[in-house]
């Protein structure tokens, strides 16, 4: 990690108020880099083009529930390739894109060893995913749009700063049945990471 970034994070953690306040819900917005795990012959490059919005309401000291909205764009460039299909042959370079959107109902369980400032959690989100598969070549485009079931277990840590703000880091695994028969894409699984800000509400 770059020194300036380390110093900034430490400074931020050191300057928060010393007294924790109880919050009963929070919103968060995170950057969500991800890496595909399935159908990697179509796209196997990681992406930093992803974000996540979430809302949680504390049900008890240990449980929170809410919703998450995510989107990410995966893309990969393929240099000029020749494809033969019977008597037909096509040569082109091309881009594969997956625009992925997810909406889940999610729950979090805060671990018993949580403190007021550091709250590790495990969570699970269940919902739906919309994947828009695109193949771009020259001015032409082939695309397919599919919905599927989405399951997303995760582990992470919530850092309440003691005021209105906090931070969160998390890692998740995404399982989705949003497969594209047109592109021979059977389901979409990935891992992702979240780093972002949390806004507490009291």
């Amino acid at each position, binding site marked *: 990690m770059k020194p300036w970034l380390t110093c900034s994070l430490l400074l931020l953690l050191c300057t928060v108020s010393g007294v924790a306040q109880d919050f009963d819900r929070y919103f968060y917005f995170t950057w969500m880099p991800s890496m595909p795990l399935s159908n990697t012959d179509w796209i196997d490059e990681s992406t930093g083009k992803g974000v996540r919005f979430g809302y949680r309401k504390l049900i008890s000291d240990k449980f929170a529930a809410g919703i998450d909205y995510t989107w990410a764009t995966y893309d990969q460039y393929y240099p000029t390739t020749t494809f033969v299909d019977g008597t037909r042959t096509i040569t082109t370079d091309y881009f594969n894109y997956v625009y992925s959107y997810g909406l889940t109902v999610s729950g979090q369980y805060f671990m018993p060893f949580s403190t007021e400032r550091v709250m590790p959690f495990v969570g699970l989100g269940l919902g739906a995913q919309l994947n828009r598969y695109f193949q771009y070549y020259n*001015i032409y485009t082939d695309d397919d749009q599919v919905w599927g079931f989405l399951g997303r277990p995760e582990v992470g840590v919530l850092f309440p700063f003691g005021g209105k703000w906090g931070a969160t880091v998390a890692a998740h695994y995404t399982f989705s049945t949003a497969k594209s028969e047109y592109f021979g894409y059977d389901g979409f699984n990935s891992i992702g990471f979240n780093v972002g800000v949390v*806004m507490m509400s009291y």
Partner: protein
Amino acid sequence: MNALKVILPVVCVVVISWGCEPQPDDLKLVDEFVVFTNYDQNADFGSYLTYYMREDTIGLVSNYPGDDTIVVGSDYARPVVDQIMTHLNARGYQSVDFDESPDLAVKAYVLKDLNIFQDYVYPPGYYYPGYGYYSYYYYPPYVQTYAYNTGVLVVEVIDLKNITPQNQVAVIWTAHLGDVFSSLNLVQQTLDAIDQAFQQSAYLTRQ
């Protein structure tokens, strides 16, 4: 806190606008043509010897009435035709005049697809009736027209040796090269695409 309430949505909007469905680099997309070829699997390409092709002319066929024309000249038609004939000659075929009863006819033409869109544009100060607001000043909307062309260069090899009694001929090889209206270097990309079309059609030979 009020400032943060403003900053956070702004940051979100910026990130959304950046991250939501980014597109590939246009220049990277159009710096090479797509080259598509197809052939008649019943054709015996070794059975033909001669072909006829007009030497400095290609056609332009459009979906826009009255737009069909002939492309003549040294800028595009001549190098395109020369490149096709060079490859055919290298594959063992011989160019002859049409009155010498060629075995094959070779046609090249640009297939143009003209798309036109019209938008109604409402100037500042004009509010759509029905939304509860009416401007003090009335500016009528104006129509803005957008048009874009797409097009492919089509090369066809037609069998004149086996004309049916009903005077029907078969296209035994076809190549589609495009897009010719979005290229960075039209002539060079076309010539490269013609090279690729023949390279991926090894069966198109007398040997």
